[in-house]
């Protein structure tokens, strides 16, 4: 059974203007996206800043309700017009945010932070809260001695562990990780990635890992979705994607990553991400694509689905 399934999901933000504050245009943050997440799977959602990957994550959980499309959580369809319809699923679908410095209330102690979701959902009786919170800290590799301290006393990596502990308390089935390591040092990144992989193995947790860093994706993801300007342009298993990317954008992303091998120079991708309120006609990547030809500039390529992978390109790097 699918944990989460979305079809033709769009999230458009109105740009208002004029005397009556009417919508004069729309920012197409997420446009006609379909995706599935299966139990025990790590799905990576990759793209540059501004491509809509965080909005997609938020929309799937109803934090930014989508404007159209359908969502099924654990097989139950969600009424996307009603924000409250996500409520009964909150426990199973948790999110960790990018910046561990702003996502923890500075006025609550670690104990209060960790016990709040447990009492809200009525999972643990009041008398057992302290033990439950201490147990959560142990799960993420922190000492239970810190229960009465405040978030400011901790480093970025430790705070991110607190955020993970807070989400884990509800025993979620899917954890949406929105750029959870990009604010951290390389050495600490590895700590958090390893922790998430352990949790996946021990609890069968699924992860939707939103990131702009493809080098991490290779280490943790089973499947990768590549997003550009609100649309998914390629999906593949992590192994396939790194072996033979089909979409020129995926190729460009891979080429721009610096490696330890000085002979392999990163190749920058020229140009800027176009504005998502005024996307180019035809293929969204055509303005920066080295392989673009006439058809790309007028016609929108459909996501062509093969057995395990799909690509939206008229002239993929490797023929499917």
């Amino acid at each position, binding site marked *: 059974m699918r944990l989460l399934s979305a079809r033709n999901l769009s999230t458009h933000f109105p740009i208002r203007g004029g005397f009556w504050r009417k919508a004069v245009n729309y920012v197409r943050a997420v446009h006609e996206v379909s995706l599935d997440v299966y139990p025990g799977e790590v799905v990576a959602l990759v793209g540059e800043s501004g491509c809509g990957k965080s909005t997609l994550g938020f929309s799937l959980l109803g934090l930014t309700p989508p404007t159209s499309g359908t969502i099924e959580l654990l097989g139950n369809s969600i009424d996307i017009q009603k924000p409250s319809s996500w409520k009964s699923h909150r426990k199973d679908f948790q999110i960790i945010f990018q910046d561990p410095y702003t996502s923890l209330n500075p006025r609550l102690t670690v104990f209060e932070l960790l016990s709040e979701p447990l009492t809200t959902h009525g999972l643990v009786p009041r008398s057992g809260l302290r033990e439950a919170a201490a147990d959560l800290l142990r799960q993420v590799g922190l000492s239970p001695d810190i229960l009465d301290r405040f978030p400011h006393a901790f480093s970025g990596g430790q705070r991110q562990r607190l955020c993970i502990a807070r989400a884990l308390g509800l025993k979620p089935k899917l954890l949406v990780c929105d750029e959870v390591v990009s604010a951290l040092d390389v050495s600490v*990144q590895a700590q958090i990635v390893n922790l998430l992989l352990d949790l996946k193995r021990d609890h069968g947790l699924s992860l939707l890992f939103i990131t702009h860093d493809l080098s991490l994706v290779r*280490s943790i993801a089973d499947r990768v979705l590549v997003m550009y300007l609100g649309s998914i342009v390629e999906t593949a298993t992590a192994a396939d994607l790194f072996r033979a990317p089909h979409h020129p954008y995926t190729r460009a992303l891979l080429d721009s990553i610096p490696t330890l091998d000085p002979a392999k120079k990163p190749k920058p991708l020229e140009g800027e991400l176009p504005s998502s309120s005024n996307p180019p006609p035809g293929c969204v990547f055509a303005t920066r694509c080295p392989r673009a030809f006439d058809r790309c500039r007028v016609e929108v390529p459909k996501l062509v689905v093969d057995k395990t992978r799909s690509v939206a390109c008229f002239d993929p790097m490797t023929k499917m």
Partner: protein
Amino acid sequence: MPPAFKSSSSAPLLRVENLSLGFKANGKVTPVTEGVTFEVRPGEVFGLVGESGCGKTVTCLGLLRLLPKVGSAVLSGQAMFEGKDLLHMSDEDLRSVRGAEIAMIFQEPSAAMNPLLPIRSQLLMPFKHHPYNGDPEVRVTKLLRRVGFADPELVLKSYPHELSGGMLQRVMIAHALLLHPKLLLADEPTTALDVTVQAQILELLAEMQRESGLSVVLITHNLNLVAQYASRVAVMYAGRVVEEAPVADFLDNAKHPYSQGLLEALPRLDEAAHVPKPIPGSVPSADKYPSGCRFRDRCPYAFDRCTVVPQWTEISPGHRVACHLFPHPSPSPLPSPSVAMEREGGKGVR
């Protein structure tokens, strides 16, 4: 490839010697960096690497005396730039060096720009304080084109909030290069940016360096960047330099356990099942540094001698390491500034 230096005997552009900086709190001074020694040669990219809290940024801010006057102190050391000591020259002399001879790119472009002024007035500001032959407007427009803006006029009219992080960072680079500086201190110039923009920015810096012989101190925690763009690297941990080497040598043959840990923590693209290996624990804060080797709490090889501050050992020409795993043949051929500092502690405050 970064150009190899013509001859290693050429005089260094900047020589930082035994630099110790401290912060004052509760009436006492806590040393934050200790005995930092390195040199930057003309036309080279020098990588300064370490985790957050290692003192990389403090060292650079200290060089330009940008740390708050009241809360910080230079405990010892000197920083010779073209024969003048940056740390002890008069404020007036320093002002003529800052921006014109040594420029800095700050970590967070959105926080480093004045939100109330359009880009034009911010970019023209350096010309008001430094002599310049030529038309500032022309120079500004030319550099903006150089950093990849197709329409400089549009950028000049904008306010910082109207530009994206990548665009602001490129504006900052243009700003730093306006007066043809000889040395650029680039503090995590790409940490806040996407990989695609990161490649653009660093390619640009490399071009500038090839064309105008600019020297760059590249501060980063990402060794991949150092491997790609720098010719020499120094690794800092908890306020001390622990290893220094030519980059090629470092990548094949890093000696210090901390350097090795940093290399192993990197995610790899070339290996399918490579899970990055973390360094356990985190950098202690300056008031909680352990005695002796400061890495010993996190070091997998730590043994009893690590409670004593390690001395420098030369592994090969230009490659030195401060670790007891590599005992140096006595008598000491190299100065060991950290030992002296350890005993002196907070003395010598000005």
